[in-house]
């Protein structure tokens, strides 16, 4: 009996292959997008941990001094018996890529990760210590460095990208630096020694708990996760409609099987097993797809995280069985949710219920009212969360309420809109079209909700990214007002630079910086030429005292970046402690996009007074733009500065914008994918309906409307619904963008951006929505035109 039942149940899918395909595609897509995002997130997290563990930076104390540690300080401590090991750390610009170089002494280095590639291989160690040197790098870093004249590379798979570990001598050569950056202190020191602090003047620092990177980037990953969930939800819409349809269409089969003696419990069990099998099959395919998506997107994400946060994330994806299990689990759970209602229907079906499919999923007015009420509640909740909550979680909660609320509001609103449009209809066919569309809304509602979500996500994210980019570009123009930026390695070269530049440059703006701890967080204090016209005239501050530049120059105030301002809830005039016994009021706030850290600015002279030993090695040069390249060349030739020490404004801008664009590459890709899934959802719903709609179409055909015209009407109806959905999606998307810009960005990055509108993009999206819906209805409509007349006739003859 069970076997017969299985064969009977499965025969449905043999006859409705397209439906089966839709079910599987929906499940696979939902799994793919979700698991893809998860894979990206977990890979990034792994990278953070690895980066933190490189050279034990997460656990080992350090000894350091403001101007570096000398060789003799190191040797004295060793000769006194203390186990310390020298590290030289610095950035080296190789073409466009930035390479962080960590020079170590493998002979004294504490037990640690990062040097694994040296283990057990004497040849490699000899090369490492040898005169040519050896760089240990991650595989992708090795690829990036291909063709450069750096020392030979050796792949160390456990290293973070963008980092090269090398011998201290090699690092000294590459970074052109004599002094050690710091000494790592072994955790276990030999017996019987006095405390290390008593033996040295170097400052000892203990690494902070937790990885800063993970915290910094949490918001970014939350963002991705939210997108993953959205896509998963959209995918489940497809699944729900496919399962619901399959149950409706098999009512006759169920009745027959039950009449033949198949117990209800077994029938439900069989259907549940069938669903689970589909979920496993499609989930597996989805995992493969998700892995592919993650592999394709990960380099972009890695680029983003590197550009935005300086987080070294590997662009290589590894396979994690736990991830696969979690993905399959979620698919099963999602299928259970999507199919639960259908199974419940079967379980409650009376044994001899009429085997007629009801007009499928025809919702009553009551259902619509319920949906409307739920939508109202959710939208109100969204507003409350946005107004009252200040946290990132509240912001995302508000986003979720907004999106779900809008989706629920869609069917009542569509029906309302179609009612309102009734006076516009001409002739009976027009009226029928609107009335029929209204009647179809409940059946199509899930698919249309999916479309709404995808469209509003597109509008919202597009608006946010567009606003960000426009603001960012404008900000770059102001921030990078000078034509040339020069960094000298020492004071002698710096003097040379001044001398050479003095002949051509309109203004020479020196700057220097010190790292401080302000309000308990690491911060950079930059000394700028506060008297310069470049700043006074050309730099729009977010908020400022009227005489801000004079205050800066006089040392009566400090400029802070927006991040610090928002994080510490400061205001103009609020006193800020920069160092012991040094308090200054906030004189102005400036935008500082793309920088996760607190930053402060003060007059250059004030900074030099405070830190007399601080060398002035950086200069911004104002010069006629067309004279800039010649001066850059002269500076390089006459002072021997390397290529990367003299940077053209245009180059900096290009690099910054490239980093920026990469930042939102993933978001864009996920957007397109979600829209694609929504398109499939619409197609599934329409296909489902096309079979069921024959009783409604047959009378029209009988009244003399040809199948071709009927098909055109079908297309028109779908397009009307798509346009209406899009029209609702735009305001929802704008609301989404506002929450993202005014709430999420502030909480996540510490800056607020002005919201700009991009109507051209909305039109483009309308076109996309119409295309998606159009493509989705072409196939069902075409089938309608090919319908043999006898099928339509039979509707009347043997009305089920």
């Amino acid at each position, binding site marked *: 009996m069970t076997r017969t039942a299985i064969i009977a149940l499965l025969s449905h899918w043999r006859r409705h292959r397209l439906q089966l395909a839709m079910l599987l595609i929906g499940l696979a897509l939902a799994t793919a997008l979700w698991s893809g995002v998860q894979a990206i997130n977990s890979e990034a997290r792994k990278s953070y941990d690895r980066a933190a563990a490189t050279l034990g930076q997460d656990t080992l104390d350090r000894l350091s001094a403001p101007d570096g540690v000398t060789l003799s300080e190191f040797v004295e401590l060793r*000769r006194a*018996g203390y186990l310390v090991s020298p590290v030289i750390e610095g950035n080296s610009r190789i073409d466009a890529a930035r390479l962080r170089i960590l020079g170590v002494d493998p002979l004294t280095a504490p037990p640690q*990760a990062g*040097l694994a590639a040296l*283990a057990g291989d004497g040849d490699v160690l*000899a090369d490492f210590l040898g005169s040519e040197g050896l760089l240990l790098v991650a595989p992708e870093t090795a690829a990036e460095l291909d063709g450069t004249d750096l020392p030979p590379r050796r792949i160390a798979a456990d290293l973070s990208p963008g980092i090269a570990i090398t011998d201290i001598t090699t690092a000294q050569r590459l970074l052109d630096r004599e002094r050690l950056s710091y000494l790592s202190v072994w955790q276990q020191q030999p017996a*019987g020694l006095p405390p290390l602090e008593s033996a040295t003047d170097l400052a000892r620092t203990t690494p902070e708990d937790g990885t800063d990177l993970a915290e910094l980037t949490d918001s970014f990953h939350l963002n991705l996760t939210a997108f993953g969930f959205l896509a998963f939800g959209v995918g489940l819409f497809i699944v729900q409609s496919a399962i619901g349809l399959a149950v409706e269409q098999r009512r006759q089969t169920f009745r027959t099987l039950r009449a033949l003696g198949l117990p209800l419990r077994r029938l439900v069990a069989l259907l549940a097993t069938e669903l689970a099998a589909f979920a496993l099959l499609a989930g597996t395919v989805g995992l493969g797809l998700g892995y592919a998506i993650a592999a394709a997107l990960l380099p972009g994400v890695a680029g983003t995280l590197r550009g935005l946060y300086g987080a070294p994330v590997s662009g290589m994806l590894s396979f994690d069985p736990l991830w696969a299990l979690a993905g399959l689990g979620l698919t099963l759970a999602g299928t259970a949710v999507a199919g639960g209602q259908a199974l419940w229907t079967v379980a409650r079906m009376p044994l001899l219920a009429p085997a007629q499919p009801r007009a499928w999923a025809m919702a009553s007015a009551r259902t619509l009212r319920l949906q409307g009420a739920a939508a109202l509640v959710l939208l109100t909740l969204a507003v409350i969360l946005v107004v009252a909550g200040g946290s990132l979680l509240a912001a995302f909660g508000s986003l979720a309420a907004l999106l779900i609320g809008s989706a629920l509001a869609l069917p009542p609103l569509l029906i309302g809109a179609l009612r309102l449009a009734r006076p516009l209809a001409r002739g009976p066919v027009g009226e029928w079209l609107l009335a029929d569309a209204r009647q179809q809304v409940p059946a199509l509602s899930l698919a249309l909700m999916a479309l709404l979500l995808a469209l509003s996500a597109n509008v919202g994210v597009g608006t946010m990214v567009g606003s960000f980019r426009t603001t960012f570009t404008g900000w770059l123009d102001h921030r990078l007002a000078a034509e040339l930026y020069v960094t000298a390695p020492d004071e002698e070269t710096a003097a040379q630079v001044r001398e050479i530049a003095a002949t051509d440059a309109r203004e020479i703006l020196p700057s220097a910086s010190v790292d401080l701890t302000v309000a308990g967080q690491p911060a950079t204090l930059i000394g700028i030429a506060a008297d310069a016209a470049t700043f006074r005239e050309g730099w729009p501050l977010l908020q400022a005292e009227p005489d801000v530049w004079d205050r800066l120059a006089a040392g009566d105030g400090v400029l802070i970046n927006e991040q610090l301002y928002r994080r510490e809830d400061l205001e103009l005039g609020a006193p800020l402690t920069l160092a012991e016994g040094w308090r200054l009021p906030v004189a102005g706030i400036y935008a500082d996009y793309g920088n996760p850290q607190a930053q402060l600015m003060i007059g250059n002279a004030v900074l030099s007074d405070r830190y007399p030993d601080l060398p002035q090695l950086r200069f911004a040069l104002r010069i006629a733009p067309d004279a800039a390249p010649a001066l850059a060349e002269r500076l390089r030739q006459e002072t021997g500065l390397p290529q990367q020490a003299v940077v053209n404004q245009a180059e900096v801008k290009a690099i910054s914008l490239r980093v920026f664009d990469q930042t939102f590459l993933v978001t864009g890709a996920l957007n397109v994918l979600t829209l694609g899934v929504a398109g499939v959802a619409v197609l599934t719903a329409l296909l489902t309906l096309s079979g069921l709609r024959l009783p409604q179409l047959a009378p029209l055909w009988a009244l003399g409307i040809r199948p071709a015209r009927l098909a055109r009407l079908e297309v028109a109806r779908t397009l009307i619904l798509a346009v209406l959905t899009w029209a609702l999606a735009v305001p929802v998307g704008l609301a989404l963008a506002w929450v993202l810009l005014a709430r999420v960005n502030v909480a996540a990055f510490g800056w607020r951006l002005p919201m700009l509108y991009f109507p051209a993009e909305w039109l483009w999206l309308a076109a996309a929505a119409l295309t998606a819906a159009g493509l989705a209805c072409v196939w069902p409509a075409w089938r309608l035109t090919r319908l043999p007349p006898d099928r339509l006739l039979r509707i009347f003859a043997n009305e089920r």
Partner: protein
Amino acid sequence: MRDRICCALAAALWLAGPAHAQGYAGLGAEAGAEFAIPRADTSFDFPADHFAHPGYRIEWWYLTANLEGSDGTPYGIQWTLFRSALAPSRTDGWETDQVWLGHAAVTTPDAHLFDERFARGGIGQAGVAEPFDAFIDDWSMRSTGGDDPLDRIALTARGDSFSYDLALTAEGPLIRHGDAGYSVKSLEGQASYYYSQPFYEVEGTLSLPRGDIQVTGSAWLDREWSSQPLSENQSGWDWFSLTFDSGAKMMAFGLRTDAEGTHFTSATWIEPDGEATAYGDGAVTLTTLETGEVADRTLPLRWRVELPARDLDITTAPINRDAWMGTSFPYWEGPVTVSGSHAGRGYLEMTGY
């Protein structure tokens, strides 16, 4: 992790059997052509030869002492400085090719404490300085006077859980092994320069986890340098430095191959007045009497040592069988007692197990 790196380094040292040494910077079983090679016709020049010989690939200052607490408890200490050159050039600054390795240990009847240090030469972290100070970090073997810098020595080392501070006074002359210090190590002719100061009287303090202990005893310093490690088929050695109650002393070693076991032996007999007689291959025989599990390996615990030319037939037994040096290159090194035709004590080193 670091252990494995250092293992690669230690493999560069002579300590390593060929199995490890092969492939190390191409310096495995054969010396790099540019390194100096020991020659039979050279004679030592003291005190110059107490210092480092950077033209040779490997070198060591190897001191072991049999000590006794005031309650009669036997102790042993080891202090070793190894030098290994990656190339015979670049001797100054960070960019040196000289790598130094220190091993220190204290053995008691129920504990064996040890530690190791690595350093680069050329930066002042390790080396042998004038007038005589062989050092790595705060471990040091420093001359405190005498006609020869090695006559009086202050010896210190400090590990995770122990330290010692000892004063050594030489009561006899330096001893040249083999042919006036040219010591052959295989039938193929691998050789090293090798001399010893076996006549040290010792007193000082051991600082152990349970407290400080005043000790007295005797010590033996080995000095050796070469560019030729073991012959290709040699897998390790067993090395004895023994002091008999009669005042006579003996150095004996046997080199092993995997196939034959001990196959090449050499010994030096030292009269109490310092008169030394060298014995070539086969004169002394080494026989394992008992083996046991130490650090997951099977090691000889008791040896029979026979030198018929001196009517010597003795048995050695460890004071602490667990004197395993679990350093990056591991080996057994510990104090032994001697019984049989001659009674006494000494030190035993077993590598390649």
